[in-house]
């Protein structure tokens, strides 16, 4: 009896091991189609409340037809790394929110994306929602692989009271004037600008990108190209030199080793006079109260520059037609007029759906958003941002090079060379 029990125990152990390795398969064929959606629009992300409201509305409308299995991954970098792991495992979720990061090329090289062109051709109303440049931004070789959800024209915000205290009448028109204003603010006892050096240094990089994008026609073309490999141009080095000057002389001490949150808090608490960022930050300003918002202005970067509104959108990684169809249904839902209108109201983002007009009532309530829309039309120079255009290992390299640049341990030339070396590893 004991022997029989022992043999059974061994068999159970071996079998449990084998069955544990078995693949998970969907058995239901009649029930709702379950699609996986990965996003970082959760937690403290400014868009989280709007996204939650979209999910709630979608679940209500598609109950019994489509079920969303949402994978929440807070933190941009953790999210991007996870998606790249999924790509390598050939296990990309049905819906991937790229949120400005270029995941498309990696996913395409793994043949992991659904060509969405047929869906656009089959539904003219859906296709007509988007701007041509946004669709071009989300296409490769004439095929559409991404669906834009929002536009992100990035300007910079300034504190009018602090500008006034330093005797500055209006935002700078040229980079020379801008550097003089930094000095004037500093002389008035004000820390001029919020910057950071970690998590790819979003705040600092926006200034750097704007300098490169507006210094010359050549450097603007460079700033608009995808996956550049050589950062050693004189304009890039000049831009790094100015950025280093800003990091060493015109920002808070916590910029060295600091993340976006440090810089944002400094601006929100009136400790710095300027911050480069997109319209989504307006909701943070509003939380500080009406007086704080009234005291803010927004401006084009010197030389009349602005970041392009186009950004990478949602990707579809479904493995079969049914899941792809369901994923596209979600994309049609999230880009419909109602959801896009809600996005403007809830987190001050500019809709990708061109049929959604930002009403005067919304602008009256949110004048900063109105200013950004106006500035978009006034800008003379447009350029892309590094997170969606540069190799992801170059973006990661910034984390290691910015602290050295801020500490004065490397020269602008060495900074440019380090990025070039990183880019060449691809």
């Amino acid at each position, binding site marked *: 009896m004991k022997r029989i029990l022992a043999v059974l125990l061994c068999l159970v152990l071996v079998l449990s*091991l084998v069955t544990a390795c078995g693949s998970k398969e969907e058995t239901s064929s009649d029930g709702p189609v379950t699609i996986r959606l990965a996003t970082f629009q959760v937690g403290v992300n400014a868009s989280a409340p709007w996204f939650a409201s979209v999910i709630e509305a979608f679940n209500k409308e598609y109950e019994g037809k489509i079920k969303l299995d949402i994978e929440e991954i807070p933190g941009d970098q953790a999210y991007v790394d996870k998606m790249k792991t999924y790509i390598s495992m050939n296990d990309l979720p049905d819906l991937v929110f790229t949120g400005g990061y270029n995941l498309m090329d990696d996913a395409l090289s793994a043949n992991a994306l659904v060509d969405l062109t047929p869906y656009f051709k089959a539904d003219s109303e859906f296709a007509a929602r988007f701007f041509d440049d946004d669709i071009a931004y989300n296409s490769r070789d004439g095929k559409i692989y991404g669906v834009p959800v929002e536009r992100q024209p990035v300007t910079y915000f300034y504190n009018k009271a602090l500008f006034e205290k330093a005797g500055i009448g209006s935002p700078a028109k040229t980079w020379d004037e801008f550097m003089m204003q930094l000095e004037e603010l500093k002389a008035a006892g004000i820390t001029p600008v919020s910057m950071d050096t970690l998590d790819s240094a979003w705040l600092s990089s926006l200034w750097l990108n704007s300098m490169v994008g507006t210094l010359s026609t050549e450097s603007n073309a460079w700033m608009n190209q995808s996956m550049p490999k050589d950062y050693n141009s004189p304009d890039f080095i000049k831009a790094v030199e100015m950025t280093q000057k800003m990091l060493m002389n015109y920002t808070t001490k916590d910029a060295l080793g600091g993340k976006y949150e440090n810089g944002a808090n400094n601006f929100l608490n009136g400790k710095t006079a300027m911050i480069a960022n997109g319209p989504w930050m307006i909701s943070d300003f509003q939380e500080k109260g009406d007086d704080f918002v009234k005291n803010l202005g927004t401006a084009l970067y010197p030389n009349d520059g602005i970041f392009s509104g186009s950004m990478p959108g949602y990707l579809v990684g479904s493995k079969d037609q049914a899941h792809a169809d369901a994923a596209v249904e979600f994309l049609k839902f999230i880009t419909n007029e109602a959801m896009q209108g809600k996005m403007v109201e809830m987190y001050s983002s500019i809709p990708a759906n061109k049929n959604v007009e930002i009403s005067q009532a919304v602008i009256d309530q949110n004048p900063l958003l109105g200013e950004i829309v106006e500035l978009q039309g006034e800008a003379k120079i447009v350029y892309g941002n590094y997170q969606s255009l540069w190799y992801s290992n170059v973006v990661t390299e910034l984390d290691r*090079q910015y602290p050295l640049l801020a500490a004065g341990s490397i020269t602008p030339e060495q900074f440019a060379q380090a990025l070039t070396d990183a880019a060449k590893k691809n």
Partner: protein
Amino acid sequence: MKNNKIWLYLFSAPLILFFTVFLLAPVIIVFGTSFMEWKGFSGNITFIGLDNYIAAVKDPEFIVSFQHTLIWIVLQSTIHVIIGVSFAIIISRKFRGWKILRTSFMIPNMISASALGFIFLMVFNGQIGLINSLLRKLNLEQLAHNWFFDPSTAFVSVTVTWLLFAGLIMLLVLTEIGTIPDSLYEAADLDGASQWQKDLFITIPQLRNVLGTCMIIAATSKLKEFELIYLTTKGGPGTGTMSLPLYLYNTSIVQNNFGYSNMIGTVLIALGLILIFIISKVFKIASDD
């Protein structure tokens, strides 16, 4: 006897299967693909012989990562072990409050790496950090700076996040001290030996096996140290705190250069085996004499 062998194989089967599927097979794949060019997600894999290994010798980032990893292994298997052993010998005297001390010393080992990383980010913070606050209180403001991101202090600051916390070593050694026969100490007492002499000539020699084990644990822990570096400096500033595990992560997840990262993985496995071999030989682990 033959019957017993069948039982032995039967009961070992699940473990052997588990080991083969989840450990041996991946290690063989890692080793095999370290000789391949395997970049990106296209699935194109080409045999390139030793090219990845030759490239590593010329790669300054690999070399500096290797050097840092070696330095951390040496520090961990010496200073860290010495701290743990010394503490174990001290509290083995079971003076009043020894249990509180033992538990306190274990706390850092019970906290998750993410929490520990966050704690140290606060301790070494340039503005509100504990260290800088203390320096300001002591009128040493000029020494206050950002410890993790100043190139001159980044390496030391990261090392401090694990070097001093030898709770596991202390626990292992303390357990071993408990197994040393009292008769040895009684004989030493009769000979008039001092406490120091007893520690030096009875306790420490009796700990040979566990000391070797502790050194293996300490040394190999640095072959997989990732979280605390990633959470604090991410290997920066520059390559100031880059290690082989972190470089492996960067080459695979960030650069998608899987062949090269598997070469780093193979180097790490080889380094681990060499360390275990050397330490086992030096300490004659599991030998009779």
